[in-house]
């Protein structure tokens, strides 16, 4: 949103809101001034005419006194005063606009006409006085007095009318003013409420975006980049700021996701390296175990081969077969531990192992192989069955005079290959199983088969990249069953 495209800006909004308040206050002021002006006009109307009429009456009385003074004494001073007063009277009546809209206008017209008639009679009286026509000036003076009486009568009549009307108007005025006071109170309260709402709207308009932005900023500061975008409805700088903030937040989110992904990749890589290191370590340990527990297999292998040749020369075929089996067993055992073999080869090795045991222990220890043909080609690390069979023999059957049976079986279950080594010996307690699978014993030499079983388990887990491959089930006096659930390798 560019500056030009914005419909409004904070400055414009502030101007509009401020102007609204100013206009409202101006309206109130104009209203109050207008009402006061009307009151003033009213008061002036009520008394203006009364004052004006009173001044005419006073002037007329003064004129009459001056006229009488002149007629009595022929004093030029009184005549001058009379002339001055007459000017004043003419000035006063000259300002009257002759109209005929109401009876007051008619009476005012009468007053003007009577004033002129009074002037004529007075002037005539003065003229007659100058001519020393006593009867004449007396008659005209009497006429002027009569006219003056009419004027004062009209003035009194008008004043009475005004007084009556003003009395009525005053009563109405008082009740109307009271009513107007209540109305003005309502208007003022209304204006205050209106102003407060406008101020509230302004502050909401200003504060809400800031509040939203600050809340979103706080969330981001806490590390929560998944907050919703800040929404500002007004199309002004706040919207621009909110949009920019949202863009910034989303950019940071994307960057953090990228960083997380990179870190995950690195972690996985390190894990892989670690597994490889552990694998190597385990292989080294197996080799060490083999070296520690057995004499040099090559030496033994060569020696056994010499024995085989000697038995052939001495015509002892059973001894020869025994040594041949032993030779094959040793050959299988000395192969590279990081190589890969099959279940079939593993089973063959166990059969060799069984034949040797049979020579040693006769038929006290029996072996049974239930091998599904489809499982024979499943690839497994070498020497995974032998340590388990040894374990079955040592922990299960070695102490039993009646001997026992070790059953090695393999089969497919959906997408898994299951290998089971089971004996019907004396079984193991859960502590023994736990000891075999963990490193709780202090001296590894105390339990070399435990090392062998753990080694098998660890190698299988590393090989298949799974942790739940190996399981031991055992019951005291019932036997032990070691189950390996191998996933199909691509």
């Amino acid at each position, binding site marked *: 949103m560019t500056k030009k495209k914005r419909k409004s800006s904070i400055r414009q909004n502030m101007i509009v809101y401020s102007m609204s308040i100013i206009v*409202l206050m101006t*309206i109130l002021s104009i*209203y109050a001034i*207008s*009402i006061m002006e*009307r*009151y003033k*006009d*009213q008061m002036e*109307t*009520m008394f203006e005419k009364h004052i004006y009429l009173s001044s005419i009456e006073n002037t007329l009385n003064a004129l009459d006194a001056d006229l009488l003074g002149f007629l009595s004494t022929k004093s030029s001073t009184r005549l001058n005063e009379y002339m001055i007063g007459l000017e004043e009277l003419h000035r006063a009546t000259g300002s009257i606009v002759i*109209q*005929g*809209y*109401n*009876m*007051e*206008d*008619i*009476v005012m*017209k*009468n007053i003007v*006409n*009577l004033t002129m*008639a*009074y002037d004529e009679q007075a002037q005539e009286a003065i003229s007659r006085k100058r001519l020393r026509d006593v009867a004449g000036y007396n008659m005209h003076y009497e006429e002027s007095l*009569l*006219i003056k009486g*009419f004027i004062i009568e009209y003035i009194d009549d008008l004043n009475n*009318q*005004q007084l009556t*009307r*003003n009395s009525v*108007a005053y009563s*109405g*005025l008082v009740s*109307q*003013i009271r*009513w*107007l006071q209540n*109305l*003005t109170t*309502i*208007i003022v309260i*209304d*204006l205050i*409420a*209106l102003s407060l*709402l*406008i101020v*509230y*709207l302004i502050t*909401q308009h200003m504060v809400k975006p800031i509040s939203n932005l600050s809340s979103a900023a706080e969330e981001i500061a806490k590390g929560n980049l998944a907050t919703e975008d800040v929404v500002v409805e007004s199309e002004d700088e706040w919207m621009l700021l909110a949009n920019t903030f949202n863009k910034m937040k989303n950019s940071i989110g994307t960057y953090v996701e990228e960083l997380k992904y990179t870190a995950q990749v690195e972690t996985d890589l390190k894990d892989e390296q670690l597994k490889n290191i552990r694998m190597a370590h385990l292989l080294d340990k197996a080799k060490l175990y083999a070296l520690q527990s057995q004499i040099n297999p090559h030496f033994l292998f060569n020696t056994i081969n010499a024995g085989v040749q000697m038995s052939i020369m001495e015509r002892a075929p059973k001894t020869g077969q025994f040594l041949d089996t032993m030779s094959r067993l040793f050959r299988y055992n000395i192969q590279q531990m990081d190589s890969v073999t099959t279940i079939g080869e593993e089973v063959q090795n166990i059969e060799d192992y069984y034949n040797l045991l049979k020579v040693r222990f006769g038929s006290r220890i029996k072996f049974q192989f239930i091998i599904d043909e489809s499982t024979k080609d499943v690839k497994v690390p070498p020497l995974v069955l032998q340590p388990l069979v040894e374990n079955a023999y040592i922990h299960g059957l070695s102490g039993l005079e009646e001997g026992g049976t070790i059953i090695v079986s393999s089969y497919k279950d959906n997408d898994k290959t299951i290998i089971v080594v089971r004996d019907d010996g004396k079984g193991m307690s859960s502590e023994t199983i736990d000891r075999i699978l963990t490193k709780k014993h202090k001296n590894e030499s105390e339990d070399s088969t435990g090392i062998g079983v753990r080694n098998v388990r660890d190698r299988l887990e590393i090989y298949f990249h799974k942790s739940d491959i190996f399981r031991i089930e055992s019951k005291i006096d019932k036997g032990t069953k070691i189950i390996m659930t191998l996933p199909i390798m691509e």
Partner: protein
Amino acid sequence: MFNKSFVLFMIGVLTVILVAGLVVGIVVSSNIASASSSDFLFDDKQEARHHIMFIINEEDQIYSDVFFDGIKQAESDYHIAAEIISISQKNYEREMLEAMDKALYADVDGVFVHCVGGDELNEKIDELWAAMIPVFLLNEDMAYSKRISFIGVNRYNIGITVGKALVESMEEVGQIAVIDQKQSQHADSMSDDTLLLGISDVFRDYDLMEIEMVTYIEQGTLSAETVATQMFKSNPDINGIFCTNGQSTLGIAQAIIDNNKVNDITLYGYGDEEELLEYIERGKIVSGTIVSDTYDMGYTTIRVFDEYMNQNHVSSYIMTGIENIHQDNLNYYRTYREVRLD
């Protein structure tokens, strides 16, 4: 805290209240400003074209509210302002002349006067005439003056109407007393009084009908009661009375009751006071009354003035109608009067 829509709604409502309050306030204050100004003469607020002055006897029942209603209506119709100067019976003549002076010096456009007087009044009318102020006479005429026109009831016609009504009510036999207002006593003899002349002209055809006596009294109930009581004693043969004033007729009716003369005397009155009409409705005491159309008289004054101002000439005598109201047409008259007043 508040929803924005709610705030905007409240702003709208308060703005409406504010505008309404301001408008009402301005209107009310305008009313205040005009509270003490005088009312317009006419509904259409036009200016008056002429200003005329009425000089009347405030105690004469002809110049009742109905008369002024007629004037008011004509004022409005012709845009003429009428200034009314009501003078009491006491010193009427002197005050009437002063009022005519006032009209002269105030330079009014015309004068209507209920005149009483002789040469002095005649001179005043001439004076006003010289000042180009036309004078019209109401109800009392001075035919030899320079008045423009006479407007009012014709006393001779009243006499004819009353005479016929009395003949009918009294079945052609009766000794009649006429009780008139003192202000009307300006005829030198019975033959000069057109009212009495009218009655006499009717009675001429009936041998047994005659005017036994004529009495002039002050207006008012008490005065009439006193005069009637004395008359019953001094002239016991009188069995018919015509009184030319409504208030006085009520006094005479009371005297008839007090003197136990109900059914012995036929009373005819003048005017349409409600009490008088109630007597007629009940019968026995007051047989009927003569009423003049005072509304028409009031209206006619201004119509005639306007005609004169436009044409510079009007009829010298303008008579307004009279009616004989008795039991048979009383309801009709009342209805007619109500319609007129509305």
